[in-house]
């Protein structure tokens, strides 16, 4: 265990969605390298409350990299400097004494800032609500082993299903696109035999809902680099194919 000294945090503060934001600097004289980055913010918040100031608002919950609640642009990188790692799993050992660390919220038109470092990601829920599911009401399911699923197929679905819905892909994208998020959900469900019945309806509905909120994908690939679960942009290609096919297959468009 070693101690880092003389860190400066430049943190974005913003009182509300419409308020003018600003950077605030805080000195951290010393911190153990065993501390997580969010524990550093906890310690800073304890200090701020002690000084009678308002604590910095940031989203976080499980601190195990799985709930997808945490966010933060750290030095301009979504979820900070460690690849394949959510902010809550970043530990101070990846920083150095004397570093100035810039901390900002996700910046995307579809994710309005709520306060300080917290944003509103509910546009993601809207995308799921229009088709990110398999219609299977409780009670009528056949035996689970009735449909064998080849292991590679199941594994590929699982790779896509690992998405934690944190929004890093959107924050990292110069266009503020949500193609990685949407395509991961589509890949999860569209690869599985259970998902075939609604495959094209799902692709069409989710892509069109996504377009209501988010920018367009122009294949920068920043999303894959920022994803804490390292979800592949191959899913975006598959999504585009399914979306195109949906326009031919879906009865709704045929009737028009």
């Amino acid at each position, binding site marked *: *265990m070693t101690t880092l000294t003389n860190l400066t945090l430049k943190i974005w503060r913003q*009182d*509300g969605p419409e308020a003018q934001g600003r950077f605030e600097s805080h000195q951290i004289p010393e911190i*153990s390298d*065993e*501390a*997580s980055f969010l*524990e550093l913010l906890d310690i800073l*918040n*304890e200090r*701020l*409350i*002690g000084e*009678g100031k*308002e604590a910095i*608002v940031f*989203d976080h*919950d*499980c*601190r*195990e*990299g*799985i*709930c997808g*609640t945490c966010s933060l642009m750290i030095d301009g990188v979504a979820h900070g400097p460690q690849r394949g*790692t959510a902010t809550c*799993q970043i*530990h101070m*050992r990846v920083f150095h004494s004397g570093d100035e660390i810039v901390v900002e919220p996700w910046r995307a038109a579809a994710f309005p800032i*709520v306060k300080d470092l917290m944003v*509103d*990601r*509910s546009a993601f*829920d809207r995308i*799921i*609500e*229009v088709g*990110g*599911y*398999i219609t*299977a*009401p*409780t009670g009528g*399911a*056949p035996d*689970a*082993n009735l449909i*064998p*699923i*080849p*292991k590679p197929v*199941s594994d590929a*679905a*699982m790779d896509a299903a*690992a998405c934690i*819905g944190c929004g890093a892909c959107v924050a990292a994208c110069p266009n503020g696109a949500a193609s990685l998020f949407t395509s991961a959900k589509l890949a*999860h469900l569209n690869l*599985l035999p*259970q*998902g075939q019945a609604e495959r094209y309806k799902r692709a069409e509905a989710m892509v069109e809902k996504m377009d209501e909120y988010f920018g367009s994908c122009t294949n920068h690939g920043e999303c894959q680099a920022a994803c804490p679960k390292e979800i592949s942009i191959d899913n975006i290609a598959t999504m585009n194919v399914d979306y195109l096919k949906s326009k031919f297959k879906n009865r709704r468009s045929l009737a028009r």
Partner: protein
Amino acid sequence: MSIDLDSKIPDGPLADKWQNYIANQKLVNPANKRKFKIIVVGTGLAGASAAATFGELGYQVEAFTFHDSPRRAHSIAAQGGINAAKNYQGDGDSVHRLFYDTVKGGDFRAREANVHRLAEVSVDIIDQMVAQGVPFAREYGGLLDNRSFGGAQVSRTFYARGQTGQQLLIGAYQQLARQIGLGNVKLWNRMEMVDVVNIEGRCAGIVTRDLMTGEFSSHSAHAVVLATGGYGNVFYLSTNAMACNVTGAWRAHRRGAAFANPCYTQIHPTCIPQADDFQSKLTLMSESLRNDGRIWVPKNPDETRSADQIPEEDRDYYLERIYPSFGNLAPRDVSSRAAKRLVDAGQGVGPLKNGVYLDFADAIGRLGKDVIEERYGNLFEMYERIAGENPYVMPMRIYPASHYTMGGLWVDYELQTTIPGLFCAGEANFSDHGANRLGASALMQGLSDGYFVLPYTIAPYLSDLLNKPVPDTSHPEFAKIQQEATDRFKQYMSIGGTKTPDHFHRELGQIIWDYCGMDRNANGLEKALSEIPALHEEFKKDLRVTGSDTSINQTLEKAGRVDDFFELGILMCKDALNREESCGGHFRSEHQTDDGEALRNDDDFAYVSAWEWTGDPSNPIENKEQLEYEVVKFATRSYK
């Protein structure tokens, strides 16, 4: 005054009770369902699955979560798996065996009929979740794979890599999202339930605080379901998420719902040990790792060599030594206490000597690194990120930590609390795990309650209310309770003391961990019972909450939750002091066998203690539900 604890267990032989219940229960016809409104608080496995299923059935549903999205609840962090009596491995599993293992694992302190129902519906859960697209692990032939978990001698655990909870919660969330999209469920996100409202002896709704605006509001319904999770965060350091709290269950308790077995808390044996004083939470390493990892400590307390340099003869594989037939898969309570004894004896490992080794060298040698990576890859990565050591090379260091709470609101067979119309599901209730929960059973219980139990058991209550309108939120009782909640939060803001909510939480957690943790005794518990109220008084005088109460304020949210943890902590210690025996997660050092195992007292303590709120946290009233076993015979739990 005492509460009538009618468990409403259906007649008939144990194995037929649930089917008899379904066959004879009162129903609500499809056209009438839309006349009923149900509130579901919490959107974890139990809450999301209940809300989605109510929506499908045609009820009007309102679902509340304090998260930004219903996909975040801490069910998501469950790693290892979900049990089901499918017997896909042909290794002798059956509904009866899962039932028996669960009752035995719970140290004969669970209600037989509830546990049997859980084992019965476990098979439906797997079918349901596969139909929803949950990508469970599969064999090359395309069929589902299983692994084994603590306390069982069969492989009945279904899993999705090391993130089974995530995949199941996303399955339930997607089903809920569909109902929200269809307009059958109305979602209220970033809304925290802060009180329960009863009118004329029935639950009529809830009072909430909008976390974004600080605004209080009242919501009424014919029935309310609490699926608000467990209270493991009372220890401050636990494997729970930061926001997990007892407020939902506790506020219901204060309005008349009995709180059962609060002293039954589970300390999970495999967590990453604490590294520092400012640590905010502990991280679990799935119990599934014990399928292939071997647990050991150096025989010599003064050992200085690194783990890979210590030869076999200088290692003590203590679980394999003491419990040869279950070995590294001994149940959680047993494994945790064994680790504690060795660490207390100075044989701990790591810089603070506060852990034991979980070693994969043998398994990697036998199966190859690729197989281990396939099974546990993401857990190994997570360990390396947190501990800064590579577990493929160096054994993991682990130590027990607060993980799950078996206690919770008392519910009858229908999952109804002692307040008519208030139901409770998932970890928040006490019903299925007795004094100790087996691994991979929490996901099973959450989904069982939400998908396959509540949708049936809520109907008889509702059918009696046919054509009665939804209670009116303009009723004076709503106004009164909403005002009380408003005043309470105003009070936190106005104390103007010097210490933060986190400060008090940390101090409280330390007391509970020291005196009501893995090892309890009368002296310690009495000490805790004098220290906690004193600290609570200090909290009321010296709390400092900065910021405003009209925009998001996480310090204020925390203050409300810590306030409730104080009162719960007192009840936990009372219950632990009262229960003069050792069972499951409750270990009283006065009651142990000569070789340090738990010593149960079935003659005097084979009951559920259901505590009643009196207005004074230090003087609750104990009510007892005697546990009747018709099928299972009491036996000393032996994993040797």
